[in-house]
């Protein structure tokens, strides 16, 4: 019984963490290149809507994914156009994207599907299927840890594994490739990157393109895997939580992963503790658990639990001539 509990809790943690992980990685990439991203929430929401709308109308998983990607990347390019090309305020641009997305998805949803902003439920063919169920069943038979491990790690959909793979992927990109070196340098000292004969603009655009891709995947996951359809404002603050996780992970993909898993775990626990009376504790205030990620991030930012160092040029538009 206990291993089942642990197994489902871990499984739930993973499932809940996936959009956080993808978005936190997206934020890591853009912020490492010096662009603050408060638009995660909006990009994810628009991508989710695109996936839901395309999936519902076309009945094709491929088209749903492509639509999400196109929309997410387009928003990131808008972000880049405003902040990189026109040195607009990055924070304001991100806010604008998020605000617009919150409204536009509902407006379009109502206009197209006439269901109060929801998209119709997606057919099973459009949804992401579970993977490794066979391996999971086999593992169930193993005594002791078998059932817990099987429940925790097998039978998820492809996006869960993709998100977990994306972490080493982004790490590898940032720390093992030439492009990564250049991106990191852009976030720290764009003048140097410029002096080294590289294009700061180009690198920031590229970082935002990656960023849009990952946000799109997160949005697509919400619709194609976690829920059966798009629901207005279904991101429900996950973009901000991912940003918090990225800061909590100190702008490092692996750190961000752990932070996302921690936040996901808290969420999974909060879901299960709703209204539950624990012996000795009484009813657990679920709100306290929900607020914990944000409190932790503030505490970290205040330098009380180790110092997080933001990229030096974060949020500063690069202009050569003063």
């Amino acid at each position, binding site marked *: 019984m206990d291993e089942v509990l642990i197994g489902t809790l871990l499984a739930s943690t993973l499932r809940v963490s996936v959009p956080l992980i993808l978005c936190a990685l997206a934020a890591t990439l853009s912020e490492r290149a010096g662009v603050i991203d408060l638009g995660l929430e909006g990009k994810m929401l628009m991508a989710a809507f695109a996936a839901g709308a395309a999936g519902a109308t076309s009945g094709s998983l491929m088209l749903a994914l492509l639509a999400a990607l196109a929309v997410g990347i387009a928003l990131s390019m808008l972000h880049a156009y405003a902040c990189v090309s026109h040195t607009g*305020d990055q924070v304001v641009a991100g806010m604008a994207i998020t605000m617009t997305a919150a409204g536009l998805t509902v407006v379009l949803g109502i*206009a197209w599907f006439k269901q109060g902003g929801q998209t119709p439920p997606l057919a099973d063919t459009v949804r992401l299927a579970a993977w490794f169920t066979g391996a999971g069943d086999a593992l169930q038979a193993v005594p002791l840890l078998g059932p817990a491990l099987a429940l925790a790690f097998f039978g998820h959909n492809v996006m869960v594994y993709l998100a977990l793979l994306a972490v080493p992927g982004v790490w590898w990109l940032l720390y093992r490739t030439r492009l990564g070196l250049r991106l990191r340098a852009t976030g720290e000292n764009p003048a140097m990157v410029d002096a080294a004969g590289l294009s700061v603009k180009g690198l920031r655009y590229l970082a935002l393109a990656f960023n849009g891709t990952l946000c799109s995947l997160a949005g697509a996951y919400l619709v194609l895997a976690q829920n059966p359809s798009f629901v207005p404002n279904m991101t429900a603050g996950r973009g901000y939580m991912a940003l918090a996780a990225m800061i909590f992970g100190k702008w490092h993909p692996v750190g961000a992963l752990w932070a996302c898993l921690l936040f996901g775990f808290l969420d999974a626990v909060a879901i299960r503790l709703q209204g539950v009376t624990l012996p000795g504790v009484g009813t657990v205030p679920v709100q306290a658990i929900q607020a914990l990620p944000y409190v932790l991030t503030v505490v970290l930012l205040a330098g009380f639990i180790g110092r997080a160092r933001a990229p030096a040029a974060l949020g500063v538009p690069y202009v050569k001539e003063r």
Partner: protein
Amino acid sequence: MSQPIELPRWIDIGVLPLVNLGMALIVAGIVVAGIGLDPLQVITLLVKGAFGSRAGIGYTLYYATTFIFTGLAVAMAFHGGLFNIGGEGQALIGGLGASLAALAFAQRLPTALMLPLMVLAAAAFGAAWAAVPAALQAWRGSHVVITTIMFNFIASALLGYLVVNVLKEPGNMTPESRSFEPSAHMPGMHEALGWLGLAWPKTPLNLSLLLALAAAVGVGLLLWKTRAGYELRTVGFSPDAAHYAGVRPRRQVMVAMMLSGALAGCVAINELAGVQHRLLMDFVAGAGFTGIAVSLIGRNHPLGIVLASLLFGALYQGGAELAFEIPGFSREMVATLQGLIVLFSGAMATVAAPTLARLYARARRPVAPKPAGVAHG
């Protein structure tokens, strides 16, 4: 190329914002047309809904009241060189303060004492909620943009907990506090005008509007007529010059953010004391974010903010009216427009500047065929 473009002042503060607003409206119009509605009809109905009747005006002004508070809050912090995204949370906690005051004292105190007490409580709670990110920025260097966002979520969780577990009436299933006693009700405008013998339809518009206008005047006076405001603006424009002038930047960060939080907290007076008469969980409903747009359009000036609030109030009221009138039109259209305005007036505010500069230069050239036409274009 990336050199700052010098535009005449009247273009810079008059024409450019209008051009930006126009671009946002055009994009919104395209969206409206895209969902199969007639933008012209929408605009007409919107204006009619917002200003076409006294009731409509009442609603418009009621919405505007809230936006004046949040817009002023954003502007106040901005003049101190800070970007306060935490208006939402500060307003929520301000609501908590006002409600606690009302629930605790309204039975005993008369309106004349109760309302000032609620204003004080709302402002104090809002200020306190802003003080934490402010102190963290001033002494620990944690960026106020990020911490205020976090504090929005924390505020909403805190309020959720308190309303559900502490403030909710036992019999009530809705997460809301019990109703305030009448002494904690801000008189409605129809009542107030009724005392003066004027007839006015019953709308949510209440005397908080006067408080908001007073706050706008107060902010203007504070910023431009008092020493405190002078020091605050000095820090906002140039921390180095402020240091030179013997102003302590940390103190100013606290002052700017706490005043900002206090203003945001006053949203509760309009919404709770004025209309709902009880504490709800979601009474701010995004007004804190709207404040950013209001402040951007209003160029961070109280007068501009009042005008921009009127604009947004009209959009909200007109939008709500449209949602009644036209099937398929939802209030989210207004939210969309709001986002577009922040995009065009905030993040891309200078995109149009080079074009304007070119047009202006062409218009000024004596040989230009029709100079006046271009200048006004």
